[in-house]
């Protein structure tokens, strides 16, 4: 039978077993280990007593504090809602011009809108609202639809080319693909538009015949974009001579636009954002342009 031997370094006895040269000391478990073990069990038992923890058939021990996670959550939501209701009422009632008179409310709107914009709008319009190819820049002075609070509110509510029953619709027809314009006519009208506008033609002065283009424009484009090519904010037709381009102002992008048409999509936010949230975003978008103007001055 195994006989323990003394370990010279520690002074403790071994258990007397040996496995492939490994021995074990029979050291007692240190008091601190017992104390911590018992302590952790006591902490656990306290948890069991005060909080819901153990299942009993088809229910569970409620704990003497009767904590209910769901009730806590409802309470927290109500607290925040109570805090918000006053601010929300103020925001609902105010116009942008009124808002800039109230710096406190303005900073509240800015910080609320910042989050709403980042989480909902930034994916298309960019973190700074400066847009992307195919998605309008919201910080400049060019507007497809009028820069007006009610108009912006409506766009946010119903979207553009969306499935909302009242959605705004706006479409650039596929003049080339649908056979309405020949290649040369498209080139001519591009030359005309670029010449009328402030956009330089990308190195191709002989791209098309601007004079011929003016006739093409009058017949095909003016009905939406206007005789002066300044667009029409009632129907979402962009201004073509302001050097602001959603899909690019170089000749090949323009050719694409006229040949294949364009139909941008802005989702309706009615089902996702509350009216107050949409109002906050409207004010924010107005503010973005103003802030931008301030900078450029």
């Amino acid at each position, binding site marked *: 039978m195994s006989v323990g031997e003394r370990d010279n370094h520690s002074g403790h006895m071994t258990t007397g077993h040996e496995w492939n040269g490994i021995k074990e000391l029979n050291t007692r478990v240190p008091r601190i280990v017992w104390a911590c073990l018992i302590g*952790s069990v006591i902490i656990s038992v306290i948890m069991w007593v005060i*909080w819901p923890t153990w299942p009993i058939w088809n229910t569970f021990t409620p704990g003497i504090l009767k904590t209910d996670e769901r009730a806590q959550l409802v309470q927290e939501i109500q607290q925040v809602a109570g805090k918000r209701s006053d601010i929300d009422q103020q925001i609902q009632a105010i116009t942008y011009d009124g808002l800039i008179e109230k710096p406190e409310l303005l900073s509240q709107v800015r910080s609320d809108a910042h989050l709403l914009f980042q989480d909902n709008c930034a994916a298309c319009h960019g973190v700074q609202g400066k847009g992307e190819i195919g998605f309008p820049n919201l910080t400049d002075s060019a507007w497809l639809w009028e820069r007006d609070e009610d108009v912006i509110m409506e766009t946010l509510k119903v979207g553009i080319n969306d499935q909302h029953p009242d959605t705004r619709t706006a479409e650039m027809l596929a003049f080339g693909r649908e056979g309405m314009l020949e290649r040369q006519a498209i080139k001519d009208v591009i030359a005309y538009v670029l010449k009328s506008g402030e956009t330089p033609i990308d190195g191709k002065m002989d791209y098309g015949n601007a004079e011929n283009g003016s006739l093409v424009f009058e017949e095909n484009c003016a009905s939406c974009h206007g005789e002066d090519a300044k667009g029409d904010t009632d129907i979402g037709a962009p201004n073509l001579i302001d050097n602001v381009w959603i899909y690019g102002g170089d000749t090949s992008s323009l050719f694409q636009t006229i040949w294949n048409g364009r139909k941008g999509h802005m989702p309706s936010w009615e089902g996702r954002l509350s009216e107050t949230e949409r109002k906050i975003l409207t004010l924010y978008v107005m503010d973005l342009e103003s802030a931008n103007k301030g900078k450029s001055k």
Partner: protein
Amino acid sequence: MMAQLTSSERQNIIAIGLAILIGGFTLAILGRNDILGIHALLFVAAGGLAIIVGARNLYKPEPSEDRSQSYYDDPSKVGIFLALIWGIFGMFIGDWIAWLMAFPDMTFSEGWSSFGRLRPSHTTGVIFGFGGNALIATSFHVVQRTSRARLPSQVLPWFVLWGYNLFCLLGVTGYFMGITQSREYAEPEWYADIWLVIVWVSYFGLYIWTLARRKEPHIYVSNWYYMAFILVVAVLHIVNNLAVPLSWGSAKSYSLFSGVQDAMTQWWYGHNAVAFFLTAGFLGMMYYYLPKRAQRPIYSYRMSIISFWGITFFYMWAGSHHLHYTALPHWVQNLGMSFSVMLLVPSWASAGNALMTLNGAWHRVRDDAVLRFMMVAAIFYGLSTFEGSFMAIRPVNSLSHYTDWTVGHVHSGALGWVAMIVFGSFYALVPWLWKRKSMYSARLIEVHFWLALAGTVVYVFALWNAGIIQGLMWRTYNDGGTLAYSFMESVDAMRPYYVARGIGGLLFLTGTILCLYNVWMTTRMATETDTESVDQSVATLQPAE
């Protein structure tokens, strides 16, 4: 490798290969209209390979009769290499996707290289490929030494080792093709799961059989842990993977559980995979190689008992802490939290037992990087189990959950504890197994040690910072009661930490490559002629005292 097998064992290998071949072929035919048809060809290839190896060696001379007087270590030798190769693969993928987090364009446009497929390839590669092979290799070595019994079969260990690697390969190749159950750490589909059950039950049988033939009166602590690892992983794997395939010819299956029960089953599995795969198995490893290398007796047999039963009992209850603040009932969350708190002391007792064992051998720790690997492993084991219990407390979890803190915590355990104890054990084991005087290069071990330690520290600190910043950004409100930061901003704030994480991972991966090189060069060194001078290398079954 085949020289030790008798001709009837070689025939058995051919028979097993034939069975796998036929099974794989049947599956391939059934799944001919599905991706399963392609995947099942892996079984066909594996079976075919076994047949070829068996047939080519069928008429080789019989082994000598005295083989039963020595231990059977060939599967352990192969397992060590497999572990390191899987480790390098898994860590490479891991570091790749670490950089991908900071630079999202650093991948190819094909589906296989998307984050969602690379990530399970990383986890399967390191946990199952690297960790699993290391556990199989060392458990075969340890159970024979501590039982003074040779493995009772020469075919079964090979079946377990190669069968297990086939499972890992099925997993990883499946992910690349888009086959997954979407259960974390249990991604392989039903046919791979059934295959693992067969392999794992064989492993269990082999282990019990060896223990039953032991010539020592008592079962050593390492074997308790290895047994717990094998047994519980079998239970976890079977229960969590209960699923109904769409058809016998489809790779897709649906879990037997749904909703919150499904989530709870998955995290009961997930947490106990950490407990019994990544903890118990490696504690078994530590309990053998650490005292052997330190040449010191285990500090306290009684502490071993307390920690073993504490860990095995408490861990089983703690899984629900992965689902704090979810649809899981509040009481289940609280119960999991309380057991996680109680779990801390047995875990620390294990770490303490290991560190106290080094008393009287600290001069060796100073001089010997191999022992230092093991010591650092024990320290990181203590750190990460403390962190784990801490993060399981609901209010703490409300900050840490879903952040990179969790990822940092996992890696403090996986790199600091699991990988370190594997490296330490391998460096100790390789010269014993191959009967070399020492490793090829002690200096390379030293370099590896510092690379691994630096890599782990950089990684873990980066993600602690990242996680806490994320958690705080997600819960900071402005005066009006809305969140102060958008999710995008919290992602943007992570970039420096993600870059640091990538650097830490690269250091760690470099160390692992050095390890493989060092092990390979050691096996190519001349055999130590005077085996008696290698005190740890007991190649023959010696009588007890």
